């Protein structure tokens, strides 16, 4: 009997999710033993035409990482949705836009202008890349960018979400084990739409640091202090996104002295990640006087970036107003 089919694809991403999968080390052999890998552009050679030729729904499990930045990304998203039984938004880019989603602060024209007029760019004719360009020999094309980067579920129906930038390898291994158990009839798939490979609580729950009632008189910068290694970072005024970020990573970053930047996305039940953090940070400011509050908030030099760093594309507002103007 043939093995169920497996696919993994990357859109506007960085390759970190692929490396995270490879970092399950020997467990990759379990994937090989239980699945027929039919499409994984980074690692094997099937092409879009091969996917197009597959029967609809014939790929049992597809892991999609990367956001939808251009029309090629969207086209393949629809294609793989059609051909896959289970489509997982794998990693922060697919779930919520992740770092490339930060481009949603700016109009896409500005993004291009910046890239093509940097200090070292030699561009006297002020050229920008063209989706279609006639060279003497013929017309050649590249994909067209969308004005706003989107998440996978903003273009196709998604079955499961696996957060993290990237998802931690021990979580990936656990999910692979679960899927294999499901194949063997020993376990059931979670309900559609569930977040898998992560916890239901927040990073604070996994963080080893001591926590007290927070009363912030000043927000600081991690490089300008030698933070107490045993005490909550937010309590020391270092902006840490732990309170609204989903658990599952073992609070790796706060464990090594770095603030949580929120790469595991919203905790269970959070509708808008940035809004939740605004609430949390505002609640711990130790002042009731407007001028003093303002002065304390001046210490947060980039609040929108702090609160929407990984989540802008997946938030309620999705982008800035500037980006919508195109």
């Amino acid at each position, binding site marked *: 009997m043939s093995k169920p089919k497996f696919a993994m694809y990357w859109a*506007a*991403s*960085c*390759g*970190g*999710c*692929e*490396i*995270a999968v490879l*970092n399950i*080390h020997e467990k990759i052999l379990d994937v090989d033993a239980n699945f027929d890998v039919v499409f*994984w*552009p*980074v690692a094997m*050679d*099937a092409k*879009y*035409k091969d996917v197009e030729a597959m029967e609809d729904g014939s790929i049992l499990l597809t892991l999609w990482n990367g956001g939808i*930045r251009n029309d*090629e990304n969207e086209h393949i998203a629809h294609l793989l949705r059609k051909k896959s039984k289970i489509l997982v938004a794998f990693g922060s880019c697919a779930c919520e836009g992740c770092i*490339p989603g930060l*481009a949603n602060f*700016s109009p896409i024209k500005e*993004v*291009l202008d*910046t*890239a*093509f007029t*940097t*200090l*070292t*760019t*030699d561009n006297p004719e002020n*050229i920008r*890349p*063209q989706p279609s*360009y006639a*060279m*003497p*020999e*013929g017309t*050649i094309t*590249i994909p067209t960018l969308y004005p706003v980067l989107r998440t996978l579920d903003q273009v196709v129906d998604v079955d499961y979400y696996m957060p993290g930038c*990237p998802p931690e390898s021990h979580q990936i291994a656990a999910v692979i084990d679960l899927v294999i158990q499901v194949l063997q009839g020993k376990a059931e798939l979670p309900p559609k739409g569930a977040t898998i490979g992560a916890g239901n609580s927040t990073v604070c729950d996994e963080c080893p640091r001591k926590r007290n009632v927070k009363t912030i008189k000043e927000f600081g*910068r*991690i*490089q*300008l202090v030698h*933070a107490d*290694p045993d005490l909550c970072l937010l309590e020391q005024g270092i902006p840490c996104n732990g309170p609204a970020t989903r658990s599952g990573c073992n609070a*790796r*970053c706060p464990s*090594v*002295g*770095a603030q949580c930047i929120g*790469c595991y996305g919203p905790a269970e039940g959070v509708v808008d990640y940035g809004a939740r953090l605004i609430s949390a940070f505002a609640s711990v400011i130790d002042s009731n006087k407007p001028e003093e509050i303002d002065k304390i908030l001046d210490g947060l*030099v*980039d609040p929108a*970036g702090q609160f929407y*760093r990984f989540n802008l594309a997946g938030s309620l507002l999705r982008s800035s107003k500037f980006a919508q103007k195109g």
Partner: protein
Amino acid sequence: MQRITIDPITRLEGHGKIEIFLNEQGNVTNTYFQIPELRGFERFCVGRPVEEMPLLTNRICGVCPEAHHMAAAKATDAVYHVEVPRTGKMLRELLYSAFYCTDHTTHFYALGGPDFIMGPDAPVAERNILGVIHKVGLEIGGKVIQMRKYGHTVVEIIGGRKVHPCTSIPGGLTKGINEEQRKEIEQMGRWAIEFAQFTLKAFNDIVLSNKTYLDLIVGDIYTHKTYYMGLVDENNKVNFYDGKVRVVAPDGKEYVKYEPKDYAANIAEHVEPWTYLKFPYLKNVGWKGFVDGPDSGVYMATPLSRLNAADGMATPLAQAEYEKFYSTLGGKPVHQRLAIHWARLIELLYAAERWVELVTDPEITSPNFHAIPTATPTEGVGIVEAPRGTLTHHYWTDERGVVTRANLIVGTTNNYAPITMSIKKAADSLIKKGNVNEGLLNMVEMAFRAYDPCFGCATHSLPGQMPLEVTIYDADGNPVRVMKQFCS
């Protein structure tokens, strides 16, 4: 006018596309290698606190985030005009050396190496990591996994995570290592040296002792005489983490050596409207198109470039290999692109030796790994050698340390023009009178693959080939022949 479209080239960060045009005689007139992706880091980093740059720029590439993390860390040090304490520098370079071992290993065994170990005319199904295991031994697979595991363990111990490290901040790191961790890292490092030597021996036995392969390496088809760039320390030896950028001319003589802060006086980026990526070149030589030679500003930045640009390796075992490398290939500089594979292994050995050197330094466990910056932040440049080439990060900030402007020149980007030229030369040499055959596909892959473009375009799959589909159109644009390699 006939046209061959190879789309997509997979195994690049994102996607790539090649268009080859033929004239009426069926010979190649031109080749275009297009990059269809843009995310916009230089724009969206503006407005972010500069200490986030080592974290944000990690996400430029999840295969080599360590490279971006280090270049960004050094740029933020420069922005704050702060000197990192010796222990902090050593910890960063230690993490970086272990990462190099992992990355070069992955490329050689699973990506580029199979071409050599199995041979370019080996059956397609064998030209991959499985074929390598059959030929060299079953334990090889286990060793490769072990090396990757060890390398990523070191990254996790010092950097906090296996992918996208988080501990570098302006002035140093957020944590150091204790003696227990130091011992573990040392033990893994010593194993890495043995593994590197084993790999070089395997390369020697399988590749260098085989005349066919050696001929392939030294042959003309993959040769370009360009400038070469790499970071060197104060003794002009290869260093991945710190130093000055040295560029040598096609004849091997030093052309320029500059401090990171002077990169913009030396490098410019050429723009073409048919691709989202730009083509860096040496500003003062000038852009003369996709040609090599001393009058063209095109330069290469790869392991081979680093060996060419330096006077030697800073560690003894690697130095011996360095000398053997050049005496075998006829002296410096070496222009043959396939020799990059060998140079990469010499770097693997150096990285392992450097790993042990750093972890056995008595100050590596010192608690003095961070100096708090006191100066007002302004502007700074950080340069490291990414495995794929020289990596430059340049930030400007306001007085609060919020980024106001950024300029990034990334590893593989340096090689955009050389890769295009290598593809064209391979296509030129092989496609005559409109005859396109299986050989073209593989030889084009090999030209491309040696550079290990970002996620290793070199990677094969288990079946051993990059998916290429070649469509030949007649003068009216009707497809007349479609050839596929490893596509069903």
